Each structure stands twice: as C-alpha cells, then as structure tokens.
C-alpha cells in the first residue's frame, strides 16, 4: 500500500467522520486535513478526542459550495491530498428533496470537482446501504441501486450521489454503511437518531403500527466498527471501483425477534409492564399507509407529529432486504458485529439515560 500524501476528510464533526479521523491517524502517518464549516467547533471535538494537533489540520469550507484547495491555509507541511474520505452528509430523513440534494448530491459534486484538481487522488465516498431504496431481496455489492424508488429523500439523494461518483472518472470506492444505532458494542449512544426517537415512541405506547413481517431483516451497525472499516478500506488500494457493504448482513436480526427482545427487556421494568403496552402490529405497506392517511385525516396534532416522524423511515421495513457483505469480509477479514451482540445493551443504555434529556418526542 502506498501511503497517502495527505488525507482530506469531510464530515469530520459527525458521529462517523470523527471516528474515521481517529482510525486513520492510528493506521497511517499521513497528515489529515478536515474540511469543516466551523474550525472552532472542530478544535473542541479534536481536544475531546485527544488528537495530536500536529497531525490534523482544519480547513474551513462548506461542501455545499464550490471548493478550492487553499495551499496557504493548512499547515505548510501538508501536501495536496491523495485520498479523500467524503463522509459529510445530511442524514435527516424528513428533508425535502431539494434540501437533501444540497448536501448529499451537490456536496458530493463539489468534492468530486475538488478531487479533480488533485493529481491522482482517490475518493472514498461514504454512501448508505439504503441508497437502494425500495429494492428487496439480496442486495449485492455490485448493485448500483435505483429503479425501485425510495422511502425518503435521504435514500434518493444518496443514490444520486453514488451515480455522480461512479461517472466522475475518478478512482473511487463507495462504502455503503447500514444504519448506525450506537457508538460501540457496549451500546453507548452519544448521538440520537431516528431509530432512537422511534424506539422512545414505541416504549411510551404512542406508536403502534409498523410495516413489515416477522422475518424482515433489521440491519444496523455500531459506529466504531463502521468508522474503523471505512478507514481500513480507505487505505486499501484494491478497493478501486468497488462498492462495499458495511452492514450486519447475516448478523441482522429478524424484525419479530428484535421486537420480542426489545419488549421483553422493557418488560423487566414492572411499572412499564403494568401499562400493558402492546408490541406493535406488523402490517403490509398499504395497511400502514392507510393508517398514516387516517391519522392525517382525524388525528390530534401530537399523533400526527408522531406518525409523520416515523413515516420518513419506518416504511423501509416493508421492503425486506439482506445485504451481501462478501466484499467487506474479503477486504476486512471480518464481519460487522451481529446485532444480537449489542442491541440489548443499547436499549439498556437508552433506558439508563432516560432517553437522553434532549431527545424530543418526535422530530
């Protein structure tokens, strides 16, 4: 493996990006430049992570705007990057398509344009396993997604960004992570997302329906494994032109099993158990959509808000898919930790933290 001259990382202030930086620094001596909108914020994160300030340089920039490598801004010893890890993304599922495209598509376009100004740079694009949208069945790492539609604008914009990278003429690798549900196998959650918000609603007995079947695979991963995998693949030159699933794959849990485990764990709390809150009903998509329309027609504001918050991603469960992870296994020599290894720990963390004080009921 040829050591990169330097590595440019986008999205470094995010849950995954910051861990990618840590892993890259551990695995290579190459200097790292992080492209951030707010260098002061990054400095705080870097201090919190205990990063060696001599090895990481912050470059102010916004991926939604045209980018230019400013040789004078970063430290003088940092050379032009030969590796770009593009992990910046807008992961809010409820965005309008235009909003989602702004970061996920136009942001990628700007990174591609920037990469073109670097001699022989390689682009590692962090996409999403769910860029395949409504596709069902076995999703191979050769699938280039599209064709079946999407559940939300995040999925669609991620697909469009993949297409842009593939047609860029650059040397690229596309990493397709599954949904991140916790920091690590201990189940720690430092960044709440749609999954945690949904779990809270089901725990509170304010949500009751879910599309899918007992057998629908639920594929999720922890952040530390994902970040380390991205860093390792980024430094592996044999990945060129490949799409790699960073997913639980065969370690996914069937939805029915996941719900049974979840409600059994919650039922350990006598006070919760006495409420008699039922496991959600699993339905086909038309029935779920009929329920959504009914809530829109007659529901109170709170129920409407809750149902809308779920509608941005829960319908993905109606499109059961299993992600082939052969490529990741070949390149990394391991699989993602199975969901069963940490799901309960994550639930316990959420309960212990009282769902985190800042976690709104529905966003």
């Amino acid at each position, binding site marked *: 493996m040829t050591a990169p001259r330097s590595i440019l990382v986008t999205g470094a202030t995010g849950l995954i990006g910051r861990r990618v930086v840590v892993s890259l620094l551990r695995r290579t001596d190459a200097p790292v430049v992080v492209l951030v909108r707010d260098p002061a914020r990054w400095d705080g994160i870097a201090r919190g992570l205990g990063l060696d300030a001599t090895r990481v340089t912050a470059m102010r920039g916004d991926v939604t705007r045209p980018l230019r490598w400013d040789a004078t801004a970063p430290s003088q010893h940092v050379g032009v990057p030969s590796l770009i890890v593009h992990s910046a993304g807008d992961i809010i599922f409820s965005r309008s398509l235009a909003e989602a495209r702004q970061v996920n598509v136009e942001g990628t376009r700007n990174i591609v344009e920037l990469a073109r100004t670097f001699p022989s740079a390689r682009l590692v694009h962090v996409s999403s396993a769910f860029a395949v949208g409504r596709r069902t069945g076995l999703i191979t790492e050769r699938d280039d997604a599209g064709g079946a539609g999407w559940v939300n604008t995040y999925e669609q914009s991620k697909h469009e960004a993949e297409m842009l990278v593939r047609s860029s003429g650059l040397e690229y690798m596309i990493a397709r992570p599954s949904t991140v549900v916790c920091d690590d196998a201990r189940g720690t959650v430092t960044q709440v997302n749609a999954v945690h918000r949904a779990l809270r609603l089901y725990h*509170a*007995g*304010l*949500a*009751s*329906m879910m599309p899918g079947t007992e057998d629908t695979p639920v594929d999720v991963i922890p952040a530390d494994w994902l970040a380390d995998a991205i860093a390792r693949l980024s430094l592996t030159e044999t990945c060129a032109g490949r799409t790699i699933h960073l997913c639980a794959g065969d370690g996914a849990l069937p939805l029915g099993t996941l719900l049974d485990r979840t409600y059994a764990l919650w039922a350990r709390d006598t006070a919760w158990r*006495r*409420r*008699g*809150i*039922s*496991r*959600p*009903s699993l*339905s*086909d998509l*038309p*029935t779920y959509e*009929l*329920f959504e329309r*009914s809530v829109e*027609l*007659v*529901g*109170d504001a*709170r*129920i409407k808000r*809750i149902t809308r918050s779920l509608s941005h991603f829960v319908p993905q469960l109606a499109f059961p898919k299993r992600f082939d992870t052969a490529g990741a296994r070949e390149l990394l020599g391991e699989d993602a930790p199975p969901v069963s290894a940490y799901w309960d720990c994550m639930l316990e963390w959420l309960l212990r933290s009282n769902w985190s004080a800042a976690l709104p009921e529905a966003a």
Partner: protein
Amino acid sequence: MTSIGAIRYEFPAGTQSVRELAAAGLLESSAETLESLGFAQIRVACEESPYALALRASERLLQESGIDRESIGLLVYGGAPGGLAFAPARALASAASDTVSAARFRYPSTRLQYDLGLERAAVIAVDQLACTTLFGAVRVARALCIAEGIDRALCVSTDMYPPLAGREALFNCTADAACAVLVEREGQRNRIVAARTVTKGYYWDASAMRDEIVASYFPTALHVINETVREAGWSVADVDWVIPHNVSRRSWEILMGLVALPRARLWADNIARDGHTLAGDNFINLRDALDAGAITPGERLLLFSYGYGAHWTALAVEA
C-alpha cells in the same frame, strides 16, 4: 355449547344526519370528515327513555322467540344506571341528580325482571364497560349458564345521550339504542365457540390518555382477535364474517388489513345507517346480517368490540 338464541334491538324514532349533528355543534370533526369515515346518520332519542327501549327490545325478543319465560334463569342488564334509565332522553341531563339520591336504588334491572314477568330469573347488572357492555353481559351469562346449569339468560343493554351531548367519540358518531340477547346453555345455531377480553386499566382516564389509546387500539385488537380465533380452534382465514362494532369504516379497513382478512368479509352495512351505539352494535349487526340472509348455518363469525378506555373483547360464533 352456549349459543345466541335470539337477538332483538330497538332504535328510537328519531334520526339525525351527520350534517345536522355538525350544524348543531354536536361533533368535534367536520361532517365531511365523519362522512369520509363512513357515517351518514345516527339514531337519536328524544321522548324515549333508555328503559322504555330496553323493555321494548326484551319484550319483542320474548314474543318473537316464543320461549317459556319461566325457562329464563338469569337477567343481565347493562347500560343506563338507576336514575337515568327512566328519564326520557330530552330530560337525561336533569335526571342525573337521581343518581346521588335515594332514587338511585330504583334499578332498571329489577324493574325489567318484573315488567317482563321473569320471576325465575336472578338479576345481575354490569357496568363501566362502555361499548363492550353487552359483550360483558353475554360473557357473564355464558359463564353462569355453564357453571350453574341455567338454561336461558336474557342480556339487555341500553344507552342514550342527552340532547346537547357531543355525539363524537374518537372519530365515531354515537347513537342511541337498546339491544336484547338471549343466551342459551344448549343451542344449535350461533354457538359461542370462544370469548376473549383484555382490559388495560392503564388507560382508565380515557380523556387524558387519548393519544395512548389511539396507539394501543390496533395492536391490542389484533391480539384479542388472534387469541379468540386460536381459542376457537380456527385460523384467521377460517373466519367467514367479521361482525363489527360500528366504528369508522377506515379503522375497520386497517384492522382487517392487520388481521389479514379481505374487506369483503366485513359486514359493515349498518355503520352509515345506524352509527355507533353503546348498546351493542355487533349484536344488532348480527341480527341484521342473519335477517338479510348473509349468513348461512355453520359459517364462522367473529364479533369484535372495543369499550372506550380499556376494554377489547371478541366472540367467536359458529352460525
């Protein structure tokens, strides 16, 4: 096996369309919304009292069925309590004071026994089950018929709203009615194969727990239906007819989807015509479905109802 030997219901003389109710300020939602949920009109009492309707339904049931009144060993009454039962609907609000005076001991259940000439019938009243009252009565009757060898039990439920009371409950248009059901210890038609009820006391304060109740309705309904079908030794696909309580058509379409039964197996003709009675939609509908010839002997029927707040209940009946 216990069976439903006869059903007779009585509606008051008046009807009001959903639009009339909306114009009178008796609905929370718009008339258009309730129409889109399947409601067109409801039965509305004015001069009738809950008791008068209950008596009429019971008397006609006894006349129609031609049974010996001495064979009835149990009367189970549910619905309007003493004090409210005897006032005409237009005066129900002012009659409420009777429930906190000695007049509260003027019980409609015992008067019904006397007026119907059911001297051999022990009397029990059931209360606080909302729209599952008649299910509760039938369940008690079924159990006592088996436990005490009672040949026949008459179950009667009656309820009305005062004139200015709101008519909408959780997006359903509520109506006035009385319904009488004859439960027999041995019978060949409409045999009760299974009965299940789930009560979740957590939801006792229904108005405060409205969102939670909306959320809990479907999964609990599905659970009760599946358990009832399982207890009957059927599979869900075996159910020939779902005889509903007259809540919104939309909610039934969702529930039929969850249960995985085609909507064509829902006997929903009365939702638009009668609205949702507290007295016993399912039994009113069963009677009408039988009269209409929709049900043939041997068919498997599922009756499901929900009592606002905390009660989910179902019966499996073999026609």
